[in-house]
Structure formats: structure tokens, C-alpha cells
């Protein structure tokens, strides 16, 4: 079975404002799709609809042929949708290790075990530590999450998603606000995930060089609508993107 993620006429309205307007698109395993568009185009809202933080006004979301539109966020996560948030969203007063351990615990399905101490599950701790090493946070495992630098918090955010071992990785501007020397760690991680051809990777990103180097495909959202979809080179060159996203009219670009 191929796990295809598909949105059909996905729409959400906030009062009179249509933030995501009838977006139909499907994503295949082994493909990294970059979602681009100007601020307010509805990229993060589209993500929130897919991962269940927002409920769609109309339209459906199919994952592996199953209609997941009605599922709550936790159930979508369990179904295999992993999400890293744009605004860092951690457990601020818990340790870095505990942040990841909680994600590992969720992935292992340990939800209501209250009869033994958490430390008895050394396997969960070991897995959390292994993931922290992967994102180069191994040396910071004992500190509280709030004390991490912004860049390290972004890495921890990604580590939480990796710990969930999802089928779909949703990165929302993973490198935003990172210093130049921190960016490669995250890009390497995404590159490694890409090599595993069974994963669907969605990436909201503003930096066009990042998009060019990583994406197999680009879709463009503008005013909540899907306006372009195709290979990176084609999409970036298309007039509609030049105008809508890069803010240059086709004439002056030519």
C-alpha cells in the first residue's frame, strides 16, 4: 500500500475570510514538496488543517485512502502525521531529554501506564538520547528547554517530530531565525529523511535557496488558493510565481 496524503477541496473560513480555499493536492512518498507563498497566503493554516489543529469548513483529507478529516489532532498524529511547528512549541520547563522522551513515549503507545516509575523504561530514555545526538543536542540534554538558544529550540522541535517516527513530516519554516552555522544541521536532517523513500515530506519555507536545493516539487499558495504546482525550476520561473510570490512583474523580470 502506498501511503498517499491527499486534500480534496480543502477549505476553511474564518467569518467572511477564506483562509484556505478549495485546495486539492496529493502528496506521494519519497517526494519532498515545498509549499511557498507570500505571508498570509494560508501555508500554515493549510498545515494546521492537515495535522488537525484546525477543523476544515469543507473538503476532505485522505491519508492512505482513509478519510481522516474528522479525526482529532492526537489521532492524526497516531495515524502517522508528524508536525514541527513554526513558532517553537515545546514543554518549556521540562528538560531537553524529557521533551524528546515524551514524544518517544507517545510513539511507543505508553499513555496510561501509572504503576511503574518512568525511569524503569530505560529503552525510551535511550531512544530519546539517540535522537538528541542526531540533531546535535546530545550535550544539552539535561538543561531546561527554555534555556536553549533559538536555533537549538528549533532543532528540538524537529527532534520531537522525528521521535514520533511519522510517515508524513511537516516542517513549518524549520530554519526561521536560525544563525547561518545552525542551518546546515537541520538541512542535513531533512536531506537524510529524504533518502528514506517511504516518507512524505512537506516543507513550508521562505528561503528560495533552501527550497531549490531540497524540493522535488513546489506548490504555491496565494490568497488561500493553489496557484502553481510543479518541478522547482518550472514553478520558480512561472509568471504567476514571479508576480505573486517574488513580487516582480513578469515584464520587469524579463
Amino acid at each position, binding site marked *: 500500500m502506498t501511503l498517499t496524503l491527499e486534500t480534496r477541496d480543502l477549505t476553511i473560513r474564518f467569518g467572511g475570510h477564506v483562509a484556505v480555499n478549495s485546495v486539492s493536492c496529493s502528496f506521494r512518498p519519497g517526494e519532498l514538496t515545498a509549499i511557498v507563498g507570500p505571508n498570509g497566503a494560508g501555508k500554515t493554516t493549510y498545515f494546521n488543517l492537515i495535522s488537525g*489543529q484546525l477543523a476544515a469548513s469543507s473538503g476532505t483529507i485522505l491519508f492512505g485512502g482513509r478519510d481522516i478529516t474528522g479525526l482529532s*489532532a*492526537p489521532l492524526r498524529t*497516531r495515524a502517522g502525521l508528524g508536525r514541527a511547528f513554526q513558532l517553537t512549541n515545546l514543554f*518549556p*520547563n521540562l528538560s531537553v531529554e524529557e521533551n524528546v522522551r515524551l514524544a518517544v513515549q507517545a510513539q511507543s503507545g505508553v*499513555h496510561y*501506564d501509572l*504503576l511503574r*516509575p518512568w525511569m524503569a523504561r530505560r529503552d525510551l530514555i535511550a531512544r530519546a538520547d539517540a535522537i538528541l545526538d542526531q540533531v546535535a543536542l546530545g550535550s544539552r540534554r539535561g538543561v531546561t528547554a527554555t534555556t536553549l538558544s533559538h536555533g537549538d529550540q528549533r532543532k528540538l522541535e524537529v527532534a520531537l517530530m522525528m521521535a514520533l517516527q511519522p510517515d508524513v513530516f511537516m516542517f513549518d519554516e524549520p530554519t526561521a531565525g536560525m544563525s547561518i552555522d545552525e542551518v546546515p544541521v537541520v538541512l542535513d536532517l531533512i536531506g537524510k529523511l529524504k533518502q528514506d523513500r517511504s516518507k512524505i515530506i512537506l516543507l513550508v519555507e521562505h528561503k528560495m535557496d533552501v527550497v531549490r536545493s531540497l524540493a522535488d516539487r513546489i506548490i504555491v499558495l496565494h490568497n488561500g488558493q493553489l496557484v502553481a504546482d510543479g518541478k522547482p525550476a518550472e514553478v520558480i520561473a512561472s509568471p504567476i510565481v514571479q508576480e505573486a510570490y517574488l513580487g516582480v512583474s513578469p515584464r520587469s523580470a524579463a
Partner: protein
Amino acid sequence: MMLLSGDPPRSRALSILLVVIILALLATPFIFPGAKALNVAAKICIFAALVASYDLLLGYTGSVSFAHTMFYGIGSYAIAIALYGLGPNWTSVAAAVAAGLPLALLLALAIGLFSLRVEAIFFAMITLAVASAFLVLASQLSWLTGGEDGRSFQLPELLRPGTVFIGKEWFGFPINGRILTYYLVLSACALMILALLRVVNSPFGRVLQAIRENRFRAEALGYRTVFHLTYANCIAAVIAAGAGMLNALWLRYAGPDTSLSFSIMLDILLMVVIGGMGTIYGAIIGAAIFILAQNYLQALMSIASTAAADAGLPLLPGLLHPDRWLLWLGLLFIASVYFFPTGVVGRLRNKPGASR
């Protein structure tokens, strides 16, 4: 270490303080003579368990409940009604446990599933409403509960003061059913606190802390938080009801003032905050400090006031007059919250030199 579920006090001063309190409670019948000391010690035990169960909610999940005394009251009244109605025997006690604990559990389950889905303030309001309704109900159904007067009842023979196991000749006072009841209360409370310590340090307890820190993120990790919160609410309710049962057994009485009133709810809140939220150990410290102050501050002030008067100091005798004890109790609490915002336990743990 297993007994403490891998969560030791983590501070030498705190460990010493806890050991002193526990030894004092264990030895109370032998070293502090008189009925008052034993009453105070039993109350400390019962409140330590009650406050610890409240800490599970407030300190670990971050949800504010005003219905904790309701569950405490359910336990108290279950014992009182059963022993009053079915007679003073162990079958009645068993019936009270068999009826009281499930009732507390079901009510907590209903409140949780109904109100923990949404924002925390809604849960607080619902618990307040349900608890008020329950208080009115308890005082109105006087044929069952004895109304405002409450219910006095007899204990099973084994627990009565008149039942003497060892005569005066050994310790200078008789070892009787009263002392047996005290140790029953003490050991049941210790068990409940150890159970709570296990719960908060379990994988489940860790999820509760995650929910307190960032519920949205916990959901995004795949935790269905409403079930975790409801589960915690049920555990807290059952322990509170258990503490209520011990309270009724100790007092041989259950009434609105001793088991249901909002002033008890307030005391619980103060004890959690003074001891330190989210620590469980804080409940023991908070209960000990609060109840000792409540019972002995007046006597202490009387001594101080007389001493000040004898020394001819102006103003002080009046300020320290025993009638002003509530003023000083209030000041003591303001000071403790101001100087120990994380409670006594938080303060002792963060002291430089505390072992981690």
C-alpha cells in the same frame, strides 16, 4: 528508592525535615501526651494525603478544582451514614468503602469528561458549581446526613477507646482502640501518599506534566489529553474520598463543617502552596506547618504576650494577644508565599548545595 518511585526529596534539609515530621507522627502517642496532640497528629496525616491528592491536580496537571472537599465529604459521609445506619461493625465500614469510593470515582469521571475538554476555567467553574450543590444537598437531606448537625456514630469495637490492648503498667497510659485507630489512619495515609508518588513519577504522570506545560503540544504528540486529565481527576477524587473516610473514622462524626465546607478547600489550597506545588512532598510539609500553626499559634502567642507584658514592653502585649492569632496566621502565610514562591520544598531544593 523503589518505595519513593525514583523521586527522592533531592535536598538534605528537606529529607531531614520529612524524617523529623514522620518520626514525630509515628511516635506521637508515646512522646506527646494528651488527646489534643493525637488529634493534631491525625489531622496532619489525613490532610497530608488530602493535599497530596490535590497536588496531583493543581501541581501536576495545572487544573484548578474546587470540588476536592466534595470528594472528601463523600468519603466522610459514606462512613458516617453506613456506621450510623448499619451499626458499628466492620461490614458497615466495608459497605462504606464499597459505596463511597465508586461514587467519588463516577462523579469525578462525569465532571472530567464533561468539563476537561475545554479551557481550564470551565473546569474550575463546574467544580465550584457541583461542590456548592453537593454542600446544599448534604445539609438538606437531613434524614440521611443529619443536616447541619451531621452524624455522630459508634466505631467498630476494635477501634473504640474503651478497648484496651495493653494496660497502663507498660507505658504509663493504656494502648487502646484509639491508638490503633491512629496507626490505621497513619498507615493508610502513608500508603496513599506513596501511591500518589508512584502515579506522578509514572509514564502517565510525566504526560500530566507535559499537559501542564503545553497541552497543545501534548496533543500534537498524540496524547488524548482529556482522558489523561479525567484519569488524574478520578485518582485524586478516590484518594480524597479515602482521606475523608479516615477523617470520619477518626472524629467518629461527619458534618458539613468538618468535611465539606469551602474553608477546608481554602486550607487545602494554602497547604499546597505553602508546601510547594508539583512535589507531593510539599503536601506533608504544608499540612504539618499549617495544622501546627492553626492549633498551637494561639498558645504560643499567649506565652509571648504574657512575657512581653512582664517585660513591660509597650504595644506588644496587645499585638500578641491570643485573640489576634488569625491576623498572625494570615501574615505568616503572606510571608511564606512571598519568600517561598515555589513553596518550602521548592525553596529547599533550589538552595545552593542541595544535592540533585
